[in-house]
């Protein structure tokens, strides 16, 4: 199920999707534009573009620090929309942020003004980590009105009725959380992925897996386990953070991001091949 054709198209190609995340405006507006465009060049199929919120309760320290950098550099919802318009990329952009920013935007309380503006600048959907299915009706309605998608996160702890409720609400893709905890690159990608995917096997949305994917091999492994896409955030934010810390030229950091994106995309593709071999397709 999908509202937004562009986002739907990204998952309809006959290959696993690579879905990188960066916080918009990290470490500053101009550099961030370069970095996001580098991801696109590196093979991103969808980009989750973070709109920084001051209390990011679902993020680990890596992304938290990125958010602080972006806020300090002056990122706001309005600047975010400009940022999206300024980007020269040809992949669908999904807005990842917290509910309060959606709720406060515009003249009336509630998510509709934000969604309207998001549609206007060409965003394709939302991931809102602090908005469970139970509280999502107003955002769902606005998304439906403006043909945007609303992605939900399925956690390892999500079971039974909760899965049903989420299945009713989700569109675009489902974000499968590979392990408990907050975002952050880890060396292990949990075996839980396969189990988690099996629980939502019959959902009619693409399944993208995130949390802890750091290298091409990780991406390969989760795709082999059945994922339709690999979501990668912290491993990319680490590159931005290192560049910032070492005062590296923006172009160098952008190159590194492109290279990393390429590695991850290739990993995902490798995983798809392995899956095909394994299943004898």
């Amino acid at each position, binding site marked *: 199920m999908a509202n937004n054709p562009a986002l739907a198209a990204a998952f309809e190609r006959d290959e696993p999707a690579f879905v990188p995340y960066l916080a918009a405006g990290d470490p500053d507006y101009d550099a961030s534009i370069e970095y996001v465009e580098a991801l696109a060049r590196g093979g991103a199929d969808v980009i989750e573009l973070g709109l920084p*919120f*001051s*209390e*990011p*309760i*679902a*993020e*680990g*320290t890596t992304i*938290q*620090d990125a958010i*602080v950098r972006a*806020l300090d550099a002056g990122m*706001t*919802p*309005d600047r975010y929309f400009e940022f999206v318009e300024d980007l020269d990329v040809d992949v669908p952009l999904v807005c990842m942020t*917290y*509910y*309060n*920013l959606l*709720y*406060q*935007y515009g003249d009336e*309380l509630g998510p509709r003004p934000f969604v309207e503006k998001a549609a206007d600048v060409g965003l394709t959907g939302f991931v809102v*980590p*602090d*908005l*469970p299915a*139970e*509280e999502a009706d107003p955002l769902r309605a606005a998304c439906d009105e403006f043909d945007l998608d609303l992605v*939900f*996160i*399925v*956690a*390892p*702890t*999500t*079971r039974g009725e*909760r899965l049903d409720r*989420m299945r009713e609400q989700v569109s675009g893709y489902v974000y499968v*959380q590979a392990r*408990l*905890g*907050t975002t952050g690159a880890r060396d292990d990608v949990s075996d839980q992925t396969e189990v988690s995917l099996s629980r939502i096997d019959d959902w009619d949305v693409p399944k993208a897996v995130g949390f802890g994917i750091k290298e091409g091999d990780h991406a390969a492994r989760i795709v082999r386990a059945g994922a339709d896409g690999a979501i990668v955030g912290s491993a990319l934010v680490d590159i931005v953070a290192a560049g910032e810390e070492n005062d590296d030229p923006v172009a160098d950091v952008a190159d590194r991001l492109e290279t990393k994106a390429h590695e991850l995309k290739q990993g995902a593709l490798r995983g798809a091949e392995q899956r095909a071999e394994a299943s004898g397709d």
Partner: protein
Amino acid sequence: GKFGQYGGQYVPEALMPAIEELTDAYERYVLDNEDGFMDEFRERLRDFGGRPTPLQYADQLSERYDTDVYLKREDLLHGGAHKLNNALGQVLLAKYMGKDRIIAETGAGQHGTATAMAAAHLDMPCEIYMGRTDINRQRPNVFRMRLNGAEVNPVTVGRGTLKEAISETMRDWATTVETTHYVIGSIVGPDPFPRMVRDFHRVISDEMREQSLDRLGRLPDSVLACAGGGSNTMGAFAEFVDDDAVDLVAVEAGGSSLTVDEDEGVAPNSATLSTGVEGVLHGARTKLLQDSDGQIMESHSVSAGLDYAGVGPELAYLVDEGRVTPVNVGDDAALEGFHRLSQEEGIIPALETAHAFGYLHENPDAVGDVTLINVSGRGDKDLETVIEETEKRDLDVDVEMSVFESSGGAM
């Protein structure tokens, strides 16, 4: 689990199962007293906590303001504040739920110390998240937590204070949710926390109401309580909400000013009920101190325990309904209230509590013939702050500490 449009459960999906499990446990153990949970809770509150706490007639203040002032002495509860009611309730509940680890956030350290005490008492491993800044300025409370065997985890992100500590504790919980219970320290957070924390603190107003009827043969005209997150407030109000004739006054920290610096993202107050705007923070929809974009402000109060940009959703609702009157008192008046209660009644209150006495002083005619004030905590933790902040100011009530400088003999 909602209070009008307020409340709800705005948390990461990974936590939702825990929230559902907790809701189930809350309903069974707390609301239905399954396995005698509430009986054990009340017994431990009595024996370990020291309940009931007295309702004391304040001779000097009553004379000064020409109205009968009674003090609800939550400062006498074990640990020195009302906080233990909730901490003990939640740690005991975690035990009934079969959890084997406790985490909590703390700002000034009052909730952290209460949780550490309760966890030691009930033999539960306990970790407390506390901002690096708060750790450095609240050393005695850190000592107390460590002495009670709790781990204290410094939170270095942001300004390193309460709101960062809450976010960090939620992150821990998202990772460990299957074995761990998160003891939230106020009537905030996702449902069922606001209801449950209120119910653990409800004993305050339950006793107040009974003591008032026993002693005075009547209900009070008003109940005053300071309000930060709002746990002592709702604890003191809960049983009076249906008594329409009893005015319920929530005294917030007016800080140094009610005006806000949008550019810096700073509100020099924590008057959330008076000036906040509806939004979503830390799991609930409620009134918040935020800028026009929805970014959360740094709040400020001379009293660390009121220094929070949100407020319990139930209080936000009761204010909108007109049942609770939000008022606010600035830093100066709170400090004067602190000195006045110390000098005239022999009770050194927490700086949080002192705000309620600041309000009484400024509005002695607004409280009716009989007013009950919740002395939510004692002020031992605030001595250094009070002395420092008093020296900076030219207050009506004052005290000088020159005894340390002097070196002469006594005779």
